[in-house]
Protein backbone atom coordinates (compact mmCIF):
# COMPACT_ATOMS: atom_id res chain seq x y z
CA UNK A 1 0.00 0.00 0.00
CA UNK A 2 1.07 3.52 -0.63
CA UNK A 3 0.81 6.50 1.66
CA UNK A 4 -1.54 8.04 -0.89
CA UNK A 5 -3.99 5.16 -0.44
CA UNK A 6 -3.82 5.38 3.35
CA UNK A 7 -4.55 9.10 3.07
CA UNK A 8 -7.55 8.31 0.87
CA UNK A 9 -8.88 5.88 3.49
CA UNK A 10 -8.38 8.49 6.18
CA UNK A 11 -10.42 10.94 4.11
CA UNK A 12 -13.18 8.35 3.67
CA UNK A 13 -13.11 7.77 7.45
CA UNK A 14 -13.15 11.51 8.30
CA UNK A 15 -9.96 11.10 10.29
CA UNK A 16 -6.70 13.03 10.02
CA UNK A 17 -3.25 11.72 10.71
CA UNK A 18 0.18 13.32 10.81
CA UNK A 19 2.83 12.28 8.28
CA UNK A 20 4.43 10.12 10.90
CA UNK A 21 1.17 8.46 11.88
CA UNK A 22 0.42 7.74 8.25
CA UNK A 23 3.78 5.98 7.86
CA UNK A 24 3.17 3.90 10.97
CA UNK A 25 -0.29 3.09 9.73
CA UNK A 26 1.10 1.93 6.41
CA UNK A 27 3.32 -0.65 8.12
CA UNK A 28 0.53 -1.83 10.40
CA UNK A 29 -1.92 -1.99 7.56
CA UNK A 30 0.33 -4.16 5.46
CA UNK A 31 0.62 -6.62 8.34
CA UNK A 32 -3.12 -6.57 9.04
CA UNK A 33 -4.00 -7.14 5.38
CA UNK A 34 -1.59 -10.02 5.15
CA UNK A 35 -3.36 -11.50 8.17
CA UNK A 36 -6.99 -10.97 7.15
CA UNK A 37 -6.08 -11.83 3.55
CA UNK A 38 -6.01 -15.49 4.66
CA UNK A 39 -9.71 -15.65 3.85
CA UNK A 40 -8.80 -15.48 0.18
CA UNK A 41 -7.08 -18.88 0.36
CA UNK A 42 -10.03 -20.60 1.98
CA UNK A 43 -11.53 -23.11 -0.40
CA UNK A 44 -15.16 -23.22 0.51
CA UNK A 45 -16.83 -24.85 -2.47
CA UNK A 46 -19.24 -23.41 -4.94
CA UNK A 47 -22.42 -23.48 -2.86
CA UNK A 48 -21.21 -20.50 -0.88
CA UNK A 49 -20.07 -18.56 -3.92
CA UNK A 50 -23.54 -17.24 -4.52
CA UNK A 51 -23.87 -13.59 -3.68
CA UNK A 52 -24.51 -12.69 -0.09
CA UNK A 53 -28.22 -12.43 0.46
CA UNK A 54 -30.16 -11.48 3.53
CA UNK A 55 -33.47 -13.00 4.47
CA UNK A 56 -35.95 -10.47 5.72
CA UNK A 57 -36.83 -10.97 9.34
CA UNK A 58 -40.03 -9.98 11.07
CA UNK A 59 -40.27 -6.24 11.04
CA UNK A 60 -42.21 -3.98 13.34
CA UNK A 61 -45.60 -2.84 12.15
CA UNK A 62 -45.50 0.56 10.51
CA UNK A 63 -47.55 2.44 13.03
CA UNK A 64 -47.37 5.77 14.78
CA UNK A 65 -46.68 5.51 18.47
CA UNK A 66 -45.08 7.47 21.22
CA UNK A 67 -41.32 7.81 20.95
CA UNK A 68 -38.64 10.05 22.42
CA UNK A 69 -39.62 13.70 22.76
CA UNK A 70 -37.84 16.39 20.78
CA UNK A 71 -36.05 17.50 23.97
CA UNK A 72 -34.87 13.97 24.69
CA UNK A 73 -33.53 13.51 21.17
CA UNK A 74 -31.67 16.81 21.35
CA UNK A 75 -30.56 16.23 24.94
CA UNK A 76 -27.10 15.06 23.93
CA UNK A 77 -26.57 17.50 21.08
CA UNK A 78 -23.62 19.83 21.67
CA UNK A 79 -25.62 22.60 20.02
CA UNK A 80 -29.37 22.79 19.48
CA UNK A 81 -31.74 25.64 18.69
CA UNK A 82 -35.44 25.85 17.93
CA UNK A 83 -35.86 22.09 18.24
CA UNK A 84 -33.11 21.35 15.72
CA UNK A 85 -29.48 20.23 15.72
CA UNK A 86 -27.14 23.09 14.94
CA UNK A 87 -24.31 22.51 12.44
CA UNK A 88 -21.86 24.93 10.86
CA UNK A 89 -23.30 26.80 7.92
CA UNK A 90 -23.38 24.61 4.80
CA UNK A 91 -25.05 26.81 2.18
CA UNK A 92 -23.58 30.20 1.34
Amino acid sequence: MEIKEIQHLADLSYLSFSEEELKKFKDEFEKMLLFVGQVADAEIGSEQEKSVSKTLKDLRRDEVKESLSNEEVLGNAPKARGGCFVVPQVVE
Partner: protein
Amino acid sequence: MDYSKLSITEYADGIRQKKWTAVSAVETFVKKCKSDTHNAVLEIFGDWKKLAAAVDKKAANNEKLGALAGVPIIIKDNILYKGHIASAGSRMLEKFMSPYNSTVVEKLLAADAVIIGRANMDEFSMGGTNETSAYGACKNALSDNNVSGGSSGGCAVAVACGMCLGAIGTDTGGSVRQPASFNGIVGVKPTYGTVSRYGIVAYAGSLEQAGALAKTVQDAKILLNVIKGADINDAAMVQVPTVSSVKFDVKKLRIGRIKEVWQAAKKMETLAVYTAVFAELEKRGAEIIDVSVPNFDKCLAAYYIIAPAEASTNLARFDGVKYTSFAEDAENLDELYKKTRTRYFGAEVKRRIMLGNFVLSSGFYDSYYSKAVKLQRHLRARMTEVFKKVDCVLLPTTFGPALEFGRCTADPVQAYLEDLFTVPANILGVPAISVPCGKAENGLPLGLQIMTDKFNEDFLFAASGYFVDNLRFDV
Protein backbone atom coordinates in the same frame (compact mmCIF):
# COMPACT_ATOMS: atom_id res chain seq x y z
CA MET B 1 -21.74 -10.31 56.98
CA ASP B 2 -19.95 -10.62 53.66
CA TYR B 3 -22.79 -10.77 51.16
CA SER B 4 -20.39 -11.07 48.24
CA LYS B 5 -19.69 -14.69 49.16
CA LEU B 6 -23.35 -15.63 48.69
CA SER B 7 -24.84 -17.07 45.53
CA ILE B 8 -27.48 -14.97 43.79
CA THR B 9 -30.19 -17.37 45.00
CA GLU B 10 -29.02 -17.32 48.63
CA TYR B 11 -28.78 -13.54 48.59
CA ALA B 12 -32.17 -12.96 46.93
CA ASP B 13 -33.83 -15.47 49.27
CA GLY B 14 -32.44 -13.50 52.20
CA ILE B 15 -34.13 -10.38 50.81
CA ARG B 16 -37.41 -12.23 50.26
CA GLN B 17 -37.32 -13.70 53.76
CA LYS B 18 -36.41 -10.28 55.13
CA LYS B 19 -33.21 -11.62 56.71
CA TRP B 20 -31.51 -8.49 55.40
CA THR B 21 -32.58 -5.38 53.54
CA ALA B 22 -31.43 -4.49 50.05
CA VAL B 23 -30.38 -1.02 51.23
CA SER B 24 -28.02 -2.34 53.89
CA ALA B 25 -26.73 -5.29 51.84
CA VAL B 26 -26.12 -3.32 48.63
CA GLU B 27 -24.33 -0.64 50.63
CA THR B 28 -21.59 -3.15 51.46
CA PHE B 29 -21.02 -3.67 47.73
CA VAL B 30 -21.08 0.06 47.01
CA LYS B 31 -18.42 0.53 49.70
CA LYS B 32 -16.21 -2.00 47.93
CA CYS B 33 -16.70 -0.15 44.65
CA LYS B 34 -15.73 3.12 46.32
CA SER B 35 -12.50 1.75 47.77
CA ASP B 36 -11.57 -0.16 44.62
CA THR B 37 -8.06 0.34 43.29
CA HIS B 38 -8.40 -1.70 40.07
CA ASN B 39 -10.21 1.02 38.06
CA ALA B 40 -13.00 -1.50 37.39
CA VAL B 41 -15.95 0.81 37.99
CA LEU B 42 -16.19 4.10 36.11
CA GLU B 43 -19.16 5.42 38.05
CA ILE B 44 -21.29 4.39 40.99
CA PHE B 45 -24.81 5.47 40.12
CA GLY B 46 -26.24 7.95 42.61
CA ASP B 47 -29.69 6.39 42.66
CA TRP B 48 -28.88 2.82 43.71
CA LYS B 49 -30.42 3.46 47.13
CA LYS B 50 -33.75 4.39 45.56
CA LEU B 51 -33.86 1.08 43.69
CA ALA B 52 -32.83 -0.86 46.79
CA ALA B 53 -35.43 0.90 48.94
CA ALA B 54 -38.14 0.06 46.40
CA VAL B 55 -37.17 -3.61 46.65
CA ASP B 56 -37.30 -3.44 50.45
CA LYS B 57 -40.72 -1.86 50.28
CA LYS B 58 -41.97 -4.67 48.05
CA ALA B 59 -40.51 -7.23 50.45
CA ALA B 60 -42.15 -5.48 53.43
CA ASN B 61 -45.51 -5.61 51.62
CA ASN B 62 -44.94 -9.30 50.83
CA GLU B 63 -45.14 -8.57 47.12
CA LYS B 64 -43.63 -11.10 44.75
CA LEU B 65 -40.01 -10.27 44.00
CA GLY B 66 -38.12 -11.09 40.80
CA ALA B 67 -35.20 -13.47 40.28
CA LEU B 68 -32.68 -10.72 41.11
CA ALA B 69 -34.41 -9.36 44.22
CA GLY B 70 -32.11 -6.63 45.49
CA VAL B 71 -29.11 -8.17 43.73
CA PRO B 72 -26.33 -5.61 43.07
CA ILE B 73 -25.48 -5.64 39.37
CA ILE B 74 -22.86 -3.71 37.43
CA ILE B 75 -23.35 -3.05 33.72
CA LYS B 76 -20.74 -2.51 31.06
CA ASP B 77 -20.32 1.13 30.06
CA ASN B 78 -21.92 0.53 26.63
CA ILE B 79 -25.37 -0.48 27.95
CA LEU B 80 -27.93 2.33 28.04
CA TYR B 81 -29.65 3.07 31.35
CA LYS B 82 -31.99 6.05 31.21
CA GLY B 83 -30.68 9.18 32.90
CA HIS B 84 -27.21 7.68 33.36
CA ILE B 85 -24.02 8.14 31.38
CA ALA B 86 -22.97 5.41 28.95
CA SER B 87 -19.59 6.36 27.50
CA ALA B 88 -18.55 3.05 25.90
CA GLY B 89 -15.08 3.64 27.32
CA SER B 90 -14.65 6.54 24.90
CA ARG B 91 -14.12 10.27 25.19
CA MET B 92 -16.53 10.53 22.27
CA LEU B 93 -19.39 9.71 24.66
CA GLU B 94 -17.87 11.09 27.86
CA LYS B 95 -21.01 13.05 28.72
CA PHE B 96 -23.58 10.98 26.81
CA MET B 97 -26.70 10.61 28.93
CA SER B 98 -28.90 7.67 27.94
CA PRO B 99 -32.30 8.99 26.85
CA TYR B 100 -33.93 5.57 27.22
CA ASN B 101 -33.38 2.14 28.74
CA SER B 102 -31.80 -0.70 26.83
CA THR B 103 -33.94 -3.85 26.82
CA VAL B 104 -31.32 -5.56 28.98
CA VAL B 105 -31.68 -2.85 31.63
CA GLU B 106 -35.50 -3.03 31.43
CA LYS B 107 -35.29 -6.74 32.11
CA LEU B 108 -32.83 -6.33 34.98
CA LEU B 109 -35.06 -3.74 36.63
CA ALA B 110 -38.16 -5.87 36.07
CA ALA B 111 -36.37 -8.68 37.93
CA ASP B 112 -35.81 -6.28 40.87
CA ALA B 113 -32.05 -5.96 40.38
CA VAL B 114 -30.23 -2.97 41.86
CA ILE B 115 -27.95 -1.53 39.18
CA ILE B 116 -25.12 0.10 41.07
CA GLY B 117 -22.71 1.30 38.45
CA ARG B 118 -21.03 1.08 35.08
CA ALA B 119 -17.86 -0.85 34.41
CA ASN B 120 -14.68 0.05 32.59
CA MET B 121 -14.18 -1.42 29.11
CA ASP B 122 -12.03 -1.21 26.02
CA GLU B 123 -13.11 1.75 23.91
CA PHE B 124 -16.22 0.74 21.95
CA SER B 125 -15.38 -2.88 22.93
CA MET B 126 -12.34 -2.83 20.65
CA GLY B 127 -9.62 -4.60 22.55
CA GLY B 128 -8.92 -7.58 24.72
CA THR B 129 -6.97 -6.02 27.58
CA ASN B 130 -9.03 -3.01 28.69
CA GLU B 131 -5.97 -0.91 27.80
CA THR B 132 -7.80 0.94 25.01
CA SER B 133 -10.26 2.49 27.50
CA ALA B 134 -10.12 6.29 27.45
CA TYR B 135 -10.44 6.14 31.25
CA GLY B 136 -7.34 4.08 31.94
CA ALA B 137 -6.75 0.36 32.01
CA CYS B 138 -8.35 -1.92 34.56
CA LYS B 139 -6.06 -4.11 36.65
CA ASN B 140 -6.51 -7.84 36.98
CA ALA B 141 -8.45 -8.90 40.08
CA LEU B 142 -5.53 -11.07 41.22
CA SER B 143 -2.47 -9.11 40.12
CA ASP B 144 -1.78 -5.41 39.74
CA ASN B 145 0.83 -6.10 37.03
CA ASN B 146 -1.55 -7.94 34.73
CA VAL B 147 -4.42 -6.89 32.53
CA SER B 148 -8.04 -7.52 33.36
CA GLY B 149 -8.70 -8.74 29.86
CA GLY B 150 -11.42 -7.26 27.79
CA SER B 151 -13.35 -5.78 26.48
CA SER B 152 -15.67 -6.37 29.49
CA GLY B 153 -12.65 -6.15 31.81
CA GLY B 154 -14.25 -3.93 34.45
CA CYS B 155 -17.25 -6.26 34.69
CA ALA B 156 -15.07 -9.31 35.29
CA VAL B 157 -12.91 -7.60 37.93
CA ALA B 158 -15.98 -6.15 39.69
CA VAL B 159 -17.46 -9.66 40.02
CA ALA B 160 -14.16 -11.30 40.99
CA CYS B 161 -13.52 -8.68 43.70
CA GLY B 162 -17.02 -8.92 45.14
CA MET B 163 -18.11 -5.40 44.13
CA CYS B 164 -21.36 -6.89 42.80
CA LEU B 165 -22.99 -10.30 42.55
CA GLY B 166 -23.15 -10.27 38.77
CA ALA B 167 -22.34 -8.14 35.77
CA ILE B 168 -23.70 -7.76 32.27
CA GLY B 169 -21.10 -7.35 29.56
CA THR B 170 -21.13 -7.71 25.81
CA ASP B 171 -19.29 -10.29 23.73
CA THR B 172 -18.42 -9.57 20.09
CA GLY B 173 -15.33 -11.76 19.78
CA GLY B 174 -14.81 -13.09 23.31
CA SER B 175 -15.28 -9.93 25.35
CA VAL B 176 -17.23 -11.67 28.12
CA ARG B 177 -15.52 -15.07 28.15
CA GLN B 178 -11.89 -13.90 27.97
CA PRO B 179 -11.95 -11.43 30.91
CA ALA B 180 -13.97 -14.00 32.88
CA SER B 181 -11.17 -16.48 32.26
CA PHE B 182 -8.44 -13.98 33.21
CA ASN B 183 -10.11 -13.22 36.54
CA GLY B 184 -11.16 -16.72 37.56
CA ILE B 185 -14.92 -16.36 37.11
CA VAL B 186 -17.66 -17.60 34.76
CA GLY B 187 -18.66 -15.77 31.57
CA VAL B 188 -21.30 -16.80 29.08
CA LYS B 189 -22.17 -15.59 25.59
CA PRO B 190 -25.62 -16.72 24.47
CA THR B 191 -26.90 -17.80 21.05
CA TYR B 192 -27.00 -14.89 18.61
CA GLY B 193 -30.46 -13.35 18.49
CA THR B 194 -31.63 -14.45 21.94
CA VAL B 195 -30.68 -11.32 23.92
CA SER B 196 -31.81 -7.96 22.59
CA ARG B 197 -29.17 -5.52 21.40
CA TYR B 198 -31.59 -2.60 21.71
CA GLY B 199 -29.90 0.20 23.62
CA ILE B 200 -26.40 -1.24 23.45
CA VAL B 201 -23.75 0.91 21.77
CA ALA B 202 -23.08 -0.99 18.54
CA TYR B 203 -19.63 -2.22 17.57
CA ALA B 204 -20.31 -5.15 15.22
CA GLY B 205 -24.01 -5.86 15.45
CA SER B 206 -24.04 -9.12 13.50
CA LEU B 207 -21.65 -10.74 15.98
CA GLU B 208 -22.37 -9.26 19.39
CA GLN B 209 -24.61 -10.32 22.23
CA ALA B 210 -24.87 -9.21 25.81
CA GLY B 211 -23.69 -11.89 28.20
CA ALA B 212 -23.41 -12.60 31.90
CA LEU B 213 -20.40 -12.63 34.24
CA ALA B 214 -20.73 -14.26 37.64
CA LYS B 215 -18.90 -16.29 40.29
CA THR B 216 -20.65 -19.55 39.46
CA VAL B 217 -22.32 -21.32 36.55
CA GLN B 218 -25.66 -21.25 38.38
CA ASP B 219 -25.44 -17.48 38.93
CA ALA B 220 -24.56 -16.93 35.26
CA LYS B 221 -27.56 -19.03 34.27
CA ILE B 222 -29.91 -16.95 36.44
CA LEU B 223 -28.56 -13.70 34.98
CA LEU B 224 -28.82 -14.93 31.39
CA ASN B 225 -32.38 -16.13 31.94
CA VAL B 226 -33.28 -12.64 33.13
CA ILE B 227 -31.82 -10.73 30.18
CA LYS B 228 -32.81 -13.05 27.31
CA GLY B 229 -36.14 -13.04 25.51
CA ALA B 230 -38.08 -11.67 22.56
CA ASP B 231 -37.89 -7.96 21.75
CA ILE B 232 -39.57 -6.26 18.83
CA ASN B 233 -36.98 -3.47 19.04
CA ASP B 234 -34.20 -5.73 17.76
CA ALA B 235 -34.74 -7.06 14.24
CA ALA B 236 -32.07 -9.74 14.71
CA MET B 237 -34.00 -11.55 17.44
CA VAL B 238 -34.89 -15.11 16.53
CA GLN B 239 -37.71 -17.39 17.51
CA VAL B 240 -36.21 -19.78 20.03
CA PRO B 241 -37.29 -23.38 19.36
CA THR B 242 -38.18 -25.52 22.33
CA VAL B 243 -35.21 -27.69 23.05
CA SER B 244 -36.09 -30.86 24.92
CA SER B 245 -34.21 -30.81 28.18
CA VAL B 246 -31.80 -33.69 28.42
CA LYS B 247 -30.44 -34.93 31.69
CA PHE B 248 -26.72 -34.44 31.59
CA ASP B 249 -24.85 -37.74 31.65
CA VAL B 250 -21.09 -37.72 31.31
CA LYS B 251 -21.15 -41.32 30.05
CA LYS B 252 -23.15 -40.26 27.02
CA LEU B 253 -21.20 -37.07 26.43
CA ARG B 254 -19.60 -36.68 23.01
CA ILE B 255 -16.91 -34.02 23.08
CA GLY B 256 -15.52 -32.56 19.89
CA ARG B 257 -11.91 -31.49 19.52
CA ILE B 258 -11.41 -29.41 16.40
CA LYS B 259 -8.09 -30.18 14.78
CA GLU B 260 -7.61 -26.80 13.16
CA VAL B 261 -7.51 -24.92 16.46
CA TRP B 262 -6.32 -27.72 18.73
CA GLN B 263 -3.08 -27.56 16.75
CA ALA B 264 -2.52 -24.05 18.05
CA ALA B 265 -3.46 -25.13 21.57
CA LYS B 266 -0.76 -27.79 21.46
CA LYS B 267 1.90 -25.08 21.50
CA MET B 268 0.60 -23.52 24.70
CA GLU B 269 2.57 -23.59 27.92
CA THR B 270 -0.67 -24.35 29.73
CA LEU B 271 -1.59 -27.27 27.46
CA ALA B 272 -1.25 -29.82 30.30
CA VAL B 273 -4.28 -28.33 32.06
CA TYR B 274 -6.48 -29.02 29.06
CA THR B 275 -5.11 -32.45 28.18
CA ALA B 276 -5.82 -33.37 31.80
CA VAL B 277 -9.43 -32.23 31.36
CA PHE B 278 -9.85 -34.38 28.26
CA ALA B 279 -8.21 -37.36 29.97
CA GLU B 280 -10.37 -37.07 33.05
CA LEU B 281 -13.58 -36.76 31.04
CA GLU B 282 -12.60 -39.76 28.96
CA LYS B 283 -11.95 -41.72 32.14
CA ARG B 284 -15.45 -40.84 33.30
CA GLY B 285 -16.95 -42.27 30.14
CA ALA B 286 -17.14 -39.31 27.78
CA GLU B 287 -16.17 -39.89 24.19
CA ILE B 288 -13.56 -37.55 22.70
CA ILE B 289 -14.07 -37.13 18.97
CA ASP B 290 -11.40 -35.47 16.86
CA VAL B 291 -13.00 -33.59 14.03
CA SER B 292 -11.46 -31.70 11.18
CA VAL B 293 -13.23 -28.57 9.99
CA PRO B 294 -11.10 -27.09 7.21
CA ASN B 295 -10.69 -23.31 7.51
CA PHE B 296 -12.06 -23.24 11.06
CA ASP B 297 -8.92 -21.37 12.14
CA LYS B 298 -9.73 -18.69 9.55
CA CYS B 299 -12.68 -17.60 11.69
CA LEU B 300 -10.24 -15.11 13.16
CA ALA B 301 -9.34 -13.52 9.81
CA ALA B 302 -13.04 -13.40 8.89
CA TYR B 303 -13.77 -11.74 12.23
CA TYR B 304 -11.15 -9.03 11.68
CA ILE B 305 -12.84 -8.21 8.36
CA ILE B 306 -16.51 -8.40 9.35
CA ALA B 307 -16.18 -6.65 12.73
CA PRO B 308 -14.20 -3.61 11.48
CA ALA B 309 -16.50 -3.35 8.44
CA GLU B 310 -19.52 -3.06 10.71
CA ALA B 311 -17.64 -0.83 13.15
CA SER B 312 -16.70 1.64 10.43
CA THR B 313 -20.37 1.89 9.53
CA ASN B 314 -21.72 2.00 13.08
CA LEU B 315 -19.22 4.60 14.22
CA ALA B 316 -20.01 6.88 11.29
CA ARG B 317 -22.77 8.35 13.48
CA PHE B 318 -20.20 10.08 15.69
CA ASP B 319 -19.91 13.31 13.80
CA GLY B 320 -19.90 16.06 16.44
CA VAL B 321 -23.57 16.88 15.83
CA LYS B 322 -25.58 14.49 18.00
CA TYR B 323 -23.47 12.91 20.74
CA THR B 324 -22.06 15.54 23.13
CA SER B 325 -18.38 15.58 22.11
CA PHE B 326 -17.51 17.97 19.28
CA ALA B 327 -14.67 20.11 17.98
CA GLU B 328 -15.47 23.67 19.02
CA ASP B 329 -12.99 25.23 16.61
CA ALA B 330 -14.43 23.68 13.43
CA GLU B 331 -15.16 26.25 10.76
CA ASN B 332 -17.23 24.12 8.44
CA LEU B 333 -19.15 20.84 8.47
CA ASP B 334 -16.34 18.70 7.03
CA GLU B 335 -13.96 20.07 9.61
CA LEU B 336 -16.48 19.39 12.38
CA TYR B 337 -16.62 15.73 11.37
CA LYS B 338 -12.91 15.32 10.91
CA LYS B 339 -11.71 17.22 13.97
CA THR B 340 -14.31 15.65 16.27
CA ARG B 341 -13.48 12.12 15.19
CA THR B 342 -9.73 12.66 15.17
CA ARG B 343 -9.79 14.19 18.64
CA TYR B 344 -12.25 11.95 20.47
CA PHE B 345 -11.58 8.45 19.06
CA GLY B 346 -8.62 6.46 20.39
CA ALA B 347 -5.94 4.79 18.26
CA GLU B 348 -7.44 1.28 18.16
CA VAL B 349 -10.87 2.61 17.18
CA LYS B 350 -9.32 4.63 14.37
CA ARG B 351 -7.36 1.59 13.21
CA ARG B 352 -10.53 -0.51 12.97
CA ILE B 353 -12.52 2.21 11.23
CA MET B 354 -9.73 2.48 8.64
CA LEU B 355 -9.55 -1.29 8.21
CA GLY B 356 -13.32 -1.48 7.92
CA ASN B 357 -13.48 1.21 5.29
CA PHE B 358 -10.72 -0.55 3.39
CA VAL B 359 -12.42 -3.96 3.26
CA LEU B 360 -15.66 -2.32 2.18
CA SER B 361 -14.11 -0.07 -0.44
CA SER B 362 -14.56 -0.54 -4.14
CA GLY B 363 -12.04 -2.96 -5.60
CA PHE B 364 -11.48 -4.78 -2.29
CA TYR B 365 -15.03 -5.58 -1.21
CA ASP B 366 -15.18 -8.90 -3.08
CA SER B 367 -11.83 -10.23 -1.99
CA TYR B 368 -12.21 -9.25 1.66
CA TYR B 369 -15.69 -8.52 3.03
CA SER B 370 -17.72 -10.64 0.67
CA LYS B 371 -15.28 -13.55 0.95
CA ALA B 372 -15.31 -13.34 4.75
CA VAL B 373 -19.10 -13.51 4.87
CA LYS B 374 -19.13 -16.48 2.49
CA LEU B 375 -16.56 -18.23 4.67
CA GLN B 376 -18.76 -17.52 7.68
CA ARG B 377 -21.77 -19.13 5.98
CA HIS B 378 -19.67 -22.09 4.93
CA LEU B 379 -18.39 -22.66 8.47
CA ARG B 380 -21.90 -22.33 9.91
CA ALA B 381 -23.12 -25.06 7.59
CA ARG B 382 -20.15 -27.29 8.43
CA MET B 383 -20.59 -26.83 12.16
CA THR B 384 -24.29 -27.66 12.00
CA GLU B 385 -23.16 -31.04 10.71
CA VAL B 386 -20.47 -31.34 13.38
CA PHE B 387 -22.98 -30.64 16.16
CA LYS B 388 -24.98 -33.66 15.01
CA LYS B 389 -21.99 -35.83 15.91
CA VAL B 390 -20.78 -34.07 19.06
CA ASP B 391 -22.65 -32.44 21.96
CA CYS B 392 -20.08 -29.75 22.52
CA VAL B 393 -16.65 -28.54 21.55
CA LEU B 394 -14.05 -27.98 24.26
CA LEU B 395 -11.34 -25.38 23.88
CA PRO B 396 -9.08 -23.30 26.06
CA THR B 397 -10.60 -19.82 26.46
CA THR B 398 -7.21 -18.18 25.91
CA PHE B 399 -3.59 -19.03 25.12
CA GLY B 400 -2.61 -18.54 28.72
CA PRO B 401 -3.26 -16.41 31.80
CA ALA B 402 -3.71 -12.63 31.73
CA LEU B 403 -0.80 -10.87 30.06
CA GLU B 404 1.34 -8.31 31.81
CA PHE B 405 0.55 -4.67 31.05
CA GLY B 406 1.98 -3.36 27.82
CA ARG B 407 2.80 -6.75 26.34
CA CYS B 408 -0.02 -6.70 23.87
CA THR B 409 -0.40 -3.16 22.65
CA ALA B 410 2.70 -2.77 20.47
CA ASP B 411 1.70 -5.09 17.63
CA PRO B 412 -1.98 -5.04 16.69
CA VAL B 413 -1.88 -8.30 14.71
CA GLN B 414 -0.29 -10.09 17.65
CA ALA B 415 -3.12 -8.77 19.83
CA TYR B 416 -5.74 -10.01 17.35
CA LEU B 417 -4.24 -13.52 17.34
CA GLU B 418 -5.06 -13.84 21.04
CA ASP B 419 -8.74 -14.16 20.13
CA LEU B 420 -8.34 -17.43 18.19
CA PHE B 421 -10.36 -19.59 20.59
CA THR B 422 -13.17 -17.19 21.44
CA VAL B 423 -14.01 -15.68 18.04
CA PRO B 424 -15.50 -18.85 16.47
CA ALA B 425 -18.61 -18.76 18.71
CA ASN B 426 -19.36 -15.23 17.46
CA ILE B 427 -18.71 -16.08 13.81
CA LEU B 428 -20.98 -19.13 14.19
CA GLY B 429 -23.61 -17.40 16.37
CA VAL B 430 -23.54 -20.28 18.87
CA PRO B 431 -23.46 -20.10 22.67
CA ALA B 432 -20.23 -20.56 24.62
CA ILE B 433 -19.18 -20.34 28.24
CA SER B 434 -15.84 -19.97 30.01
CA VAL B 435 -15.41 -21.56 33.43
CA PRO B 436 -12.40 -21.40 35.75
CA CYS B 437 -10.00 -24.22 35.00
CA GLY B 438 -6.94 -24.31 37.21
CA LYS B 439 -4.02 -21.94 37.32
CA ALA B 440 -0.97 -21.17 35.25
CA GLU B 441 2.54 -21.33 36.70
CA ASN B 442 2.37 -17.70 37.75
CA GLY B 443 -0.70 -18.46 39.85
CA LEU B 444 -3.17 -16.64 37.61
CA PRO B 445 -6.39 -18.37 36.56
CA LEU B 446 -7.13 -20.15 33.29
CA GLY B 447 -10.44 -20.80 31.57
CA LEU B 448 -12.04 -23.79 29.90
CA GLN B 449 -14.39 -22.94 27.08
CA ILE B 450 -17.40 -25.04 26.17
CA MET B 451 -19.21 -24.29 22.93
CA THR B 452 -22.38 -25.96 21.75
CA ASP B 453 -25.04 -25.71 19.06
CA LYS B 454 -27.55 -22.86 18.86
CA PHE B 455 -30.22 -22.62 21.55
CA ASN B 456 -28.52 -25.29 23.67
CA GLU B 457 -27.79 -23.02 26.63
CA ASP B 458 -29.40 -25.43 29.09
CA PHE B 459 -27.00 -28.15 28.03
CA LEU B 460 -24.12 -25.67 28.21
CA PHE B 461 -24.95 -24.81 31.81
CA ALA B 462 -25.47 -28.45 32.78
CA ALA B 463 -22.18 -29.55 31.22
CA SER B 464 -20.10 -26.67 32.57
CA GLY B 465 -21.68 -27.07 36.00
CA TYR B 466 -20.67 -30.72 35.96
CA PHE B 467 -17.11 -29.89 34.89
CA VAL B 468 -16.66 -27.31 37.65
CA ASP B 469 -18.12 -29.58 40.32
CA ASN B 470 -16.40 -32.81 39.33
CA LEU B 471 -13.08 -32.16 37.68
CA ARG B 472 -9.93 -31.39 39.57
CA PHE B 473 -8.17 -28.80 37.52
CA ASP B 474 -4.92 -28.56 39.45
CA VAL B 475 -2.36 -30.49 37.48
